[in-house]
């Protein structure tokens, strides 16, 4: 119980350091810094999200499940599908092919 409680505290400390504290730094940003934080930073984060999701799957060897990622790309970019349809189609494809 004590050990698990320390794990919970460690995760709480993590949350405070990486999520709560940065959110409190909101003042005195100039226009350039604001542009960097509100426009450029999210773009970089989303690019890293895609890398973070796709690369591990590719690193495990190119199996058929990679088609579910391609399906998401096609449905989102070309067919302009909604989130629900894309998720259902791609998830089904993943579990069928993997």
């Amino acid at each position, binding site marked *: 119980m004590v050990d698990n409680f320390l794990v919970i505290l460690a995760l709480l400390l993590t949350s405070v350091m990486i999520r*709560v504290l*940065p959110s409190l730094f909101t003042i005195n940003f100039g226009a350039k810094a604001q542009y960097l934080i509100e426009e450029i*930073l999210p773009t970089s984060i*989303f690019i890293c999200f895609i890398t973070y999701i796709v690369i591990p799957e590719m690193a495990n060897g190119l199996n058929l499940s990679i088609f579910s990622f391609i399906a998401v790309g096609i449905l989102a970019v070309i067919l302009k599908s*909604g989130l629900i349809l894309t998720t259902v189609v791609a998830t089904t494809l993943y579990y069928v092919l993997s």
Partner: protein
Amino acid sequence: MMNKYLNTKKVLSASNTAEYRVLLPLLLTAIFAIAPVSMLFGFTAYKADWSIVEIFLVSLLGFSGSGQFAALPLSESGASFLTIAFVTTMINSRYFAISLSCSKKLPKNKLLKVFASHVLGDEAYAIEQGHNQRAMLIIRFTIFLSWILFGVAGGIIAGLFPNLLPDDINASIPASLVLLFLAISYLQNRPYKSGLITVPKATLGFLISGLFYYTLGGIYFWIPSIILLSTISYLLNRKY
């Protein structure tokens, strides 16, 4: 200055109903996607001798997805408090940049601001883009509460049916696919229209972050990738 008042005006506007009509399917899909991951966490934690109360508390206070999963084996191996804190901080280091990028949108009330920051997650961040402050809070707290609920449910199920799941199940894939869709949608919409991102720039971004991923691994690639991509992007866009 306009941004300061934008959120309040939007919340009070007549277009709110239409906006929440758009929000509901997004939230339901996000819940559908995170539920298996959260249940798997609850299931795994229960099998690692965590009580239901502890599963509830770790989801409530230590809400961090992959960080929670990583903490389980660390805890079992007898890792110290500082080791667990360090590893989970590294795993979730992206939230530092994420939290910084949306800090302006948070409510002014300090307590609500702290809670809203604590419940920030990947899916919530991706969905809340382009939405007002109230919608942002609804998105964050709905996903957070769903995470706790399904985590506890996973623990209860593990108690009832301990051999229900195979060891090699990949329950995180729906959440990954949702995140992938939201990331692609974000990149092809807002930044593209503002000239911030183009296909060559995005390709360069994937190459750089991919290189960092291969050299530093999935835990440590976040911060250097985000810093380098942001710097390059800033320099490339300066002339515009």
